[in-house]
């Protein structure tokens, strides 16, 4: 291997430095995202129909943690701890789950367009959740809706995965068309449930479907917490192997990745995360698409940063979006899902155009 390293056109190997450009970016971004969250959480807790000064917010949190601080008056305490905080925590959990699920899904499918909403996994999970609400199922208590959303989501990911792959890769056209079919079928099932549900359930489902966090309560937080924490905790363990999967299935196997096991585990994780998001907040689209894309542009495609980074940025985006949703038209409240779709679909469109210009479309 000690060949005369005579390169053509006079470029010596010394000239090319390793890509240092990206090395520091992930740390900077992580620090920036955490800082932004630290700022935005008290702001979100402050903002609303009954404003609580940021100083009071911090004092109340300190008091509850036993770190000094003072207790606020009863209204302020109640607004903070029964309305604002569960909603903020829920927004963070749902956003982190959606962002991370999007990054995972794109990695597993080897396709930058895969996203729980686009390929129908969210609607699949929604069928489970709607079924639970419409039929008044309650066999697992608080967790019933999450559990059914998880099972239905899992079935849908598996279905889409099997249907859209051929020869070890997923073609974009097949993926999108499969998504259309799955979305249509899930829509039909949801329609059926609505048709047979009673009025109260219909109201509940309709509201839930718009994608809103306004019904946030601590029991709801508790219902999604296990799914989200488990999913978010397991995902980064597979980051290196997802990087290798970008080479294709066979080359990944040649590098020692047990591809079948990787696939099974990650499909489970995707279903967990999607279920966590969908079961509380309906279908909130495009977060899982936009967030990983932005991070990939800024810090490169390595999954060791992309997976936790997507969770952080997803949490930040959803918290900001929810804050906007409940303030821009106050006292009325915009549905969160409507807002993210309003901002996310143009991005999706731009992505399509850009890729077409660059590569003459997808095969």
């Amino acid at each position, binding site marked *: 291997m000690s060949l005369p*390293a005579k*390169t*053509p056109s006079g470029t010596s190997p010394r000239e*090319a430095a390793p890509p240092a450009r990206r090395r520091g970016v992930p740390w900077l971004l992580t620090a920036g995202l955490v800082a932004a969250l630290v700022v935005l959480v008290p702001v979100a807790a402050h903002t609303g129909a009954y404003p609580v000064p940021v100083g009071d917010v911090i004092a109340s949190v300190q008091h509850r943690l036993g770190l000094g601080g003072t207790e606020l008056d009863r209204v302020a305490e109640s607004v903070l701890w029964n309305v604002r905080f569960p909603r903020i925590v829920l927004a963070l959990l749902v956003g982190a789950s959606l962002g991370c699920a999007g990054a995972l899904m794109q*990695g597993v499918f080897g396709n930058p367009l895969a996203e729980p909403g686009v390929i129908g996994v969210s609607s699949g999970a929604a069928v489970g959740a709607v079924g639970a609400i419409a039929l008044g199922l309650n066999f697992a208590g608080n967790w019933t809706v999450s559990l059914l959303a998880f099972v239905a989501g899992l079935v849908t990911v598996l279905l889409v995965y099997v249907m859209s792959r051929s020869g070890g*890769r997923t073609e974009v056209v097949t993926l999108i068309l499969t998504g259309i079919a799955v979305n249509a079928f899930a829509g039909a099932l949801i329609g059926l449930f609505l048709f047979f549900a009673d009025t109260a359930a219909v109201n509940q489902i309709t509201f839930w479907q718009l994608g809103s966090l306004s019904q946030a309560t601590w029991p709801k937080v508790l219902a999604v917490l296990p799914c989200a924490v488990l999913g978010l905790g397991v995902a980064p363990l597979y980051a290196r192997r997802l990087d290798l999967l970008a080479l294709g299935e066979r*080359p990944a196997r040649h590098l*020692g990745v047990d591809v079948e096991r990787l696939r099974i585990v990650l499909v489970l994780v995707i279903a967990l995360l999607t279920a966590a998001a969908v079961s509380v907040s309906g279908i909130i689209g495009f977060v899982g698409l936009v967030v990983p894309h932005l991070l990939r542009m800024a810090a490169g495609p390595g999954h060791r940063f992309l997976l936790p980074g997507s969770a952080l940025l997803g949490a930040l985006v959803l918290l900001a979006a929810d804050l906007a949703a409940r303030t821009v038209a106050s006292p009325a409240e915009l549905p969160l899902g409507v807002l993210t779709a309003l901002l996310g679909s143009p991005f999706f469109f731009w992505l399509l155009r850009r890729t077409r210009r660059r590569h003459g479309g997808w095969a």
Partner: protein
Amino acid sequence: MRLLRSRPAPPAPVSPGDVLAAAEGLRVRLGARDVLHGVDVAVRAGELLALVGPNGAGKSTLLGALAADVAPSDGAVRIHGRPASDWSAPELALRRAVLPQSSTLSFPFSVEEVVRMGRAPWAALDPEDDEAAVAEAMAATEVTAFAARPFSALSGGERARVALARVLAQRAPLLLLDEPTAALDLRHQELVLRLCRERARAGDAVVVVLHDLGLAAAYAHRVAVLRAGRVAAAGPPQEIFTESLLSEVYDQPVEVVPHPRTGAALVLPVRER
């Protein structure tokens, strides 16, 4: 995290002449078609073996079977002395590296990141020579100059060299390369086969699928000529590259003439002027 994963055993040192991969009475069925019918091939440490033959003769399938990608329907494949199916994926990754016919990449990783992926099998063993292996592989394949560029922005030939650099960085004692010269210009074809030859001299076993019989004759220690899923002939190229055998295997009249200076076999199709 490293504690949770069992460490794969590193490969035992090989001595020249050890059989690192062997097919014994290998039959492979893909779909409804028998692609290989009873193939016996062995490659030893220190040897460069070229697989040649017409399109569809089963060269890539044989390489895939030696890589433990394709399961035999009958017969056996042994890698480093053990049946291929007895090895786990991480163990195999320390023992054989595979260059696929074409390389794709789903996300825009840089060239250096792609080459570094070749070191992944060693991650559990905490090697100290990661950086050296990556730098050496990139220098040997002349891709250092575009280390920072995204893989997707490269030309076909450049991609092929980056893929080869990744395979070399893996530092496995058995190298299986499927048409490593297909997309390359004259200079880099020679470079790649010189590299293969050097790896063989350093004690590795190298199997290369080739279409250029001149390259095979010039660089391979041994050649296996495949025809319709069988080995039609195997041995040193100067012995088996005869006009009658090659004309028959390729169904195309060829002449084999010695190079005027070196005496190496030159294989040319018969052309009317």
